[in-house]
């Protein structure tokens, strides 16, 4: 395992036992993610994107193969608070203010109150939400909630961000805006990001590497390098290289779909 490898999966397998038989959610996954990469998982619904992310986060145990996160088991990594996780829905606690929500992981991790306050302030600024500390989640728009959720996952400064369709519920404009902000944040902090989406333009715009998956059982169909360089802006989406990569991803998806039959 290379020095700067963060995630390493070998022949990973996961089968869910359900009432009407086993569901083979992941099969033979081989994947390496290096420090500072921005990797997207894309694929049709039910192909196992979420499951793979959850295995990395130790929210699900694989039934075969092995996986290492930061050179240790996912469980150890989780105990060391190696990552911040962002869910599809913002999943803010409605009884806590925005500030309180960002404070949550800090409280759990036993960080003293004085330090917490500074961290909350800093992370709210990072996602452009200064001034909303005392508001309750339902008083914010969906986009703002999602930003608060990102601030929460950043608050304890993990080296890695795991994001499961964080912008799936937002409209295109807000999504574009948050995509730009995320990219900026990534450039600034150089964290490793693993990102699930089912939007092709989003994947192409954000990633350094796109993992195309196909369903039943969930496999990696293709891994596409996304060499659009740093300092991307939204305009990049109309460049031929962008369209080419997007086309490649779309074809991969279609083929993956076809595999199924």
């Amino acid at each position, binding site marked *: 395992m290379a020095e700067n490898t963060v995630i390493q999966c070998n022949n990973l397998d996961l089968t869910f036992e359900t009432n009407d038989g086993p569901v083979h959610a992941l099969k033979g996954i081989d994947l390496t993610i290096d420090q500072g990469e921005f990797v997207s998982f894309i694929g049709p619904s039910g192909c196992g994107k979420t499951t793979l992310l*959850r295995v990395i*986060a*130790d*929210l699900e145990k694989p039934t075969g193969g092995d996986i290492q996160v930061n050179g240790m088991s996912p469980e150890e990594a*989780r*105990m060391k*608070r190696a*990552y*911040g*996780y962002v*869910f599809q*829905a913002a*999943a803010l*606690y*409605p*009884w806590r203010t925005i500030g309180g929500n960002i404070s*949550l*992981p800090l*409280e*759990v*991790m036993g960080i003293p109150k004085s330090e917490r306050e500074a961290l909350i302030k800093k992370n709210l600024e990072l996602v452009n939400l200064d001034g909303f500390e005392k508001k*309750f989640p*339902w*008083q914010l728009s969906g986009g703002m909630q999602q930003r608060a959720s990102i601030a929460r996952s950043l608050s304890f400064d993990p080296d890695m961000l795991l994001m499961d369709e964080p912008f799936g519920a937002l409209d295109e404009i807000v999504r574009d805006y948050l995509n730009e902000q995320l990219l900026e944040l990534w450039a600034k902090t150089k964290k490793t990001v693993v990102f699930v989406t089912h939007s092709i333009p989003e994947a192409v715009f954000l990633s350094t590497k796109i993992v195309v998956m196909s369903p039943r059982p969930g496999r990696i169909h293709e891994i596409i390098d996304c060499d659009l360089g740093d300092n991307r802006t939204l305009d990049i989406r109309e460049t031929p290289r962008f369209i080419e990569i997007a086309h490649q991803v779309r074809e991969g998806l279609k083929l993956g779909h076809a595999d199924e039959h």
Partner: protein
Amino acid sequence: MSMVFIVTALVFWIVTWAINNALAKRRFKDRTVQAGVDILIPVLFGAALLVLWEGICRGFSVPTVLLPPPSMIWARITSSLDILWADFQQTYMKAVLAGFVMGCGSGFIAAIIVDRIPFLRKGLLPIGNLVAALPIVGMAPIMVMWFGFDWPSKAAVVVIMTFFPMLVNTVAGLGATGHIERDLMHTYASNYWQTLIKLRLPAAMPFIFNALKINSTLALIGAIVAEFFGTPIVGMGFRISTEVGRMNVDMVWAEIFVAALAGSLSYGLLALLERAVTFWHPSYRSK
């Protein structure tokens, strides 16, 4: 002659109904006015009920030992405040409050224990569900036998009656947190108690208040019924059962009035508290 009363009552009924109809259909811009109207409508309705009751009693000359008219009950209430207060203290302040606090408290603690031990949850919960549906008042004579005549035996009945609704609701509430919310705590490597206090208890609050509200009416009924099986010579249940035998039915209704008032007030208080504690719940949110 007697028809006059009935006709008057019916006319009053129709008039208040018409007023209510008009009031209910209108939306008032001013919030305080709207709030006032929302209270006025049920009050008018209640008043119409009382007038109808009075009218029927007088119109049909119903024997007062069967059903006294509201005016007579009110006269009795105002002239027997001291007795009513003593009974209220005995039954409500002692038996109901003590039983309510102990029953709800132990139900809550039991729920947390049951929640921690899945085996108990599987084993105890179906039984708890069943017992919650049982005719617990049947336990009253046994409680009097075990805990004596004074309020502790009534409190014991209240404890049994309130325990299971609290247990069942709290366990349901603790299970009501979404997967995502729980996974979130998991990603923080949060321990059991942290997850309980920071996530599951707040999320369970609507369920817990549901139990508290149910229990607030159950407790009073339980305590009163338990007093039928032996008491010192004070208490709301004692008074009700004694005064029926003495043909003082107005006194019985005076006690019922106190019970209904106390029950409604406790219910209302809990509802207010609920609103304050679960302000975040979609049903209370003001945008």
